[in-house]
């Protein structure tokens, strides 16, 4: 017969899962570890190459290691040091110059992000509600992404100039890279509503707008944020690329172009600029992640 257990639970022999905090910390720790390991490999390779005078003879073949010379692959220390050095003669240290340029690029990227995001969102809502429109226009939207942006960037600059909105040429180019992920992911999110939820709305005789607002949009939020995260970095890339043909003087893209020209004199500055560009993209991405955590509290989607 049944016996009622009234005693306290016995002590555990083994826990089933580790407490939640550890995994987050461990990821950060591992990231730092990987970066340090890469740095070690970088310097070790350079050390090795210089010790064999940049050419390695294995068996019968000679491997040319010239890409590991200081001229081609600067020391990590040199790159870090370049941040503190003046960018131009008697000018500010590089990090200040990069920071100022990064702000220009960021401002263009934000405008491009908002513009592209809005266009993408509107397109997705249109496509979700009209099968015809989706069938007719979506293939061209997809095809548009096969055109390399660098090819049409000069044309966009000219058109913007003609339209009297030259300061919007970089954001428009940035928006070109941004709108596509937003369109695709938002569309997916808006149309992936479970059939039974739709039917529930129909029993309430809800209008299309009500269904959109109360059902489709919340359902689409995780996907929208996935797209926004991709678009964040894409908008930075687009802004940098857009600066090239637009003839403006400021921005990370211009800085990259300048330092590429002077690569032979000081390669470290180009590497430093690249690091700055990567950090900028990462920061923008991080901001979106924080916003996502605040907005979508009921479901955390896997990143990318």
């Amino acid at each position, binding site marked *: *017969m*049944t016996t*009622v*257990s009234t005693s306290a*639970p*016995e002590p*555990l*022999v*083994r*826990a*089933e*899962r580790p*407490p*939640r905090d550890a995994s987050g910390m461990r990821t950060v720790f591992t990231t730092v570890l990987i970066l340090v390991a890469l740095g070690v490999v970088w310097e070790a390779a350079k050390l090795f190459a210089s010790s064999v005078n940049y050419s390695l003879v294995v068996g019968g073949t000679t491997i040319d290691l010239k890409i590991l010379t200081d001229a081609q692959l600067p020391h990590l220390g040199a790159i870090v040091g370049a941040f503190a050095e003046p960018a131009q003669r008697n000018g500010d240290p590089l990090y200040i110059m990069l920071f100022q340029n990064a702000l220009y690029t960021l401002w263009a990227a934000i405008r491009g992000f908002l513009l592209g995001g809005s266009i993408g969102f509107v397109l997705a809502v249109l496509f979700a509600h009209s099968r015809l429109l989706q069938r007719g226009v979506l293939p061209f939207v997809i095809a548009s992404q096969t055109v390399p942006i660098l090819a049409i960037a000069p044309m966009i600059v000219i058109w913007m100039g003609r339209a009297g909105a030259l300061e919007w040429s970089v954001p428009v180019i940035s928006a070109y890279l941004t709108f596509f992920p937003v369109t695709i992911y938002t569309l997916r999110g808006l149309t992936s509503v479970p059939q039974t939820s739709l039917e529930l709305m129909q029993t309430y005789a809800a209008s299309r707008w009500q269904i959109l607002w109360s059902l489709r949009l919340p359902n689409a939020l995780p996907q929208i944020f996935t797209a926004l995260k991709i678009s964040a970095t894409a908008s930075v890339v687009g802004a940098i690329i857009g600066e090239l043909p637009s003839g403006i003087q400021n921005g990370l893209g211009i800085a990259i172009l300048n330092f590429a020209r002077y690569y032979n004199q000081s390669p470290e500055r180009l590497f430093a600029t690249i690091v700055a560009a990567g950090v900028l993209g990462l920061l923008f991405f991080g901001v979106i992640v924080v916003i996502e955590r605040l907005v979508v509290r009921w479901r955390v989607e896997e990143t990318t």
Partner: protein
Amino acid sequence: MIPIITIDTLSKTFRSADGDEVRALDGIQLTVEQGEFISFIGPSGCGKSTLLRIIADLIQPTSGTLRVNGKSAEQARKDRDYGFVFQNATLYEWRTIIKNVELPLEIMKHSKDERRARAREMLRLVELDDFEDRYPWQLSGGMQQRVSIARALAFEPGILLMDEPFGALDEMTRERMNNELLRIWTTMKDMTVIFVTHSISEAVYLSSRVVIMSPRPGRISEIIDIDLPRPRGPETRDLDQFFQLTSRVRHSLRQGITLE
């Protein structure tokens, strides 16, 4: 009768992500004889699936002992002493039906001809031999589950562990599958079946013993012998004795819950 599975004072506690402890199983005591058809039945949270998975060595107990075929559960798993049938058919969608049935035989390194012959035989046993080149998505739920049974029997295990295999099917299909299962069980000599279910009539119809479990903490509240005559068929469900036994099981289940 040879005891094939002996469980002694077995307990299992889960710790959830927030640090809470859940007593899934507490002091389970059970001996299963060879050739028996035994069912575990109980409400959600009573630990019946957990117990089955512990026997299968998919989860480790927190305390207590368990012997399967005279070995530890781990050794029994490594020796492939049992076949497991899950709640979903769990067929691999990239394999044809016959290749799905061949899967355990591939892993156990049987020869190509042996595998093919054995898989065909098993599909014939579950009456799906015409479907060997189809893909899982082309079969209904009931048919997929039959393939899953064929796969579990492919390597002739002495023990069959089934975790609510017919739960997703409708009543008619379920009754048909119950008959199929009994037919297969009688064909395989001395095969022991442990069957987890939440259907009272299914448990009584199939088993020689029904183990009734109650939740929080999960324990065995009663074990009822089902001495209905074999072979059983649809006419068994009309017997008075069937009704009495299902009532007994139902009462025992109710008692187990109210005593919380």
